């Protein structure tokens, strides 16, 4: 089963939930934690994994052989991203705009363009305390997270539970991280920002037709509008975590909730069981 942990708004507790859920479930079987927040990966701070394998992620960008080039400009015409320009007797390539689609190389009538790998980040694989761990890191100055997220997800094993830590927001990196999940757990807080961004994230998972539930974090501040929204939208609130200075302290020091306060394990077991029930119900529904 693949469970993704998303939120819309950043800083609501995705990493806290993902790491504690992984550490709880390892008592029951195989668990894999994939950190797909490749712009700002944080799971490793809490899991302190031993990295055993590291793989560079690159995208193909055009390399022009100017001896063969006739400056016909077809490459610039076909590029949807303005990543290649032919002003007069010159060819300019802008690798940071290139999506690596390969159209220019294929369509160049002189076969003057080849594809060259450009490094945009790295995927690291390892283990931590009985949990298989994978994360990706986007290189500084690079724009495109999705190719790295795809590589992180390619490491997923389907013989246990896979937990995916999703980046904040609702756009392409989020969709890339969430798609193909069996369930999406959305972590939010009881504030107007938390509610606004939760509603956007719910629209995203609904577009992808993935069942979802909510973890409400820092309960005790804010207002009751997230609960009201969840009730109206028939989204189950599967776990609530209070605003507690002890929890904030543990987090600040890079200590997971279940390591610092082991009594929380039971709540995470219950959370997982509820997710299992929802996924099971749904698969029975589709069979019928």
């Amino acid at each position: 089963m693949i469970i993704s942990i998303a939120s819309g708004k950043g800083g609501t507790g995705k990493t806290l939930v993902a790491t504690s859920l992984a550490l709880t479930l390892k008592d029951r079987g195989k668990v894999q934690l994939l950190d797909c927040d490749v712009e700002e990966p944080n799971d490793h701070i809490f899991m302190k994994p031993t990295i055993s394998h590291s793989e560079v992620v690159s995208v193909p960008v055009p390399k022009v052989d100017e001896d063969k080039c006739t400056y016909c400009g077809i490459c610039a015409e076909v590029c949807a991203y303005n990543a290649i320009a032919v002003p007069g007797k010159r060819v300019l390539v802008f690798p940071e705009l290139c999506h690596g689609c390969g159209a220019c190389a294929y369509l160049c009538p002189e076969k003057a363009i080849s594809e060259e790998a450009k490094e945009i980040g790295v995927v690291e694989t390892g283990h931590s305390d009985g949990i298989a761990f994978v994360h990706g890191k986007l290189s500084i100055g690079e724009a495109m997270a999705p190719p790295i997220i795809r590589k992180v997800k390619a490491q997923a094993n389907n013989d246990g539970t896979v937990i995916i830590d999703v980046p904040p927001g609702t756009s392409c990196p989020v969709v890339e991280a969430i798609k193909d999940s069996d369930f999406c757990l959305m972590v939010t807080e009881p504030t107007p920002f938390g509610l606004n961004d939760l509603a956007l994230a719910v629209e995203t998972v609904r577009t992808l037709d993935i069942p979802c539930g909510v973890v409400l974090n820092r309960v005790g501040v804010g207002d009751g509008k997230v609960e009201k929204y969840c009730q109206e939208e028939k989204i189950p609130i599967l776990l609530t975590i209070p605003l507690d200075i002890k929890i904030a302290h543990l987090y600040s020091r890079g200590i997971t909730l279940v390591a610092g306060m082991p009594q929380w394990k039971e709540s995470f077991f219950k959370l997982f069981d509820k997710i299992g029930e929802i996924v099971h119900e749904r698969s029975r529904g589709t069979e019928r």
Partner: protein
Amino acid sequence: MKEVVVLSGKGGTGKTSLVGSFAALAQSKVLADCDVDAADLHLLLSPSVKEKHEFWSEQVAIIDEEKCTQCGLCQDECHFNAINDFRVDPISCEGCGFCFQICPAEAIMMKESLSGHWFISDTKYGPLVHARLGIAQENSGKLVALVRQQAKLIAEKQGADYIVSDGPPGIGCPVISSLSGASLALLVTEPTLSGMHDLERVLSVCHHFGVLSLVCINKYDLNEDNTHQIESYCTNRGVEVASKIPFDNVVTEALVQGLPIVEYCQGKVTDEIESLWHHVSHML
């Protein structure tokens, strides 16, 4: 006219609360919400929308089943594995048009889709340019660039001194688009190991694009050891820590009331934000 963009790397460190307060404090400015896929600034500024525009950007390939001869060339050549069984998965399609260019049966069309909306609004603090990217859409970077461009046009027309932009979390495409060419980046962090890790990365991005940065430590008293570490890290990198804001529940209370904290109450948090804006405006 100078532009300050508020970034953080890690989400939820307090960017929007800070920008909301700057909106109330700054005199002659235009506000821009560059977090187009989870925009929140409007919740503090109660804007009345004056102009609503469509954002057409993303292209998606569509295969005409009647013309398609199922030769398979598009499937073989698509670098994004977006075509299976002679159908395009619109979510995987990056709109490059490669398949459209090479289809021997001319069975593929590229269709533009509505990717979102952008708005020009009035608020009691001045004009606000904001946007909403459509759900599961790409091109957030382009929409951010559009928001900044519109904010700049308004600022030039009105002779405003500042543009204050609320940036997105992360370090990728929309962050780069919010940052490039800005006069100053204010980086909001918190004294957690995650906050520190993410600050280092976003600071490197600012450095990479040659944008001057200042750091603000929010909730600094949550873990003072970590706060000291951030301060010495910044000193070593030659970056100024311009402000340390204490943890206080009044920040959330103000948010629930839909008000910038400096308008909600007096106190240490408000004092600190006022002196931070004073400092930022002098550096611009």
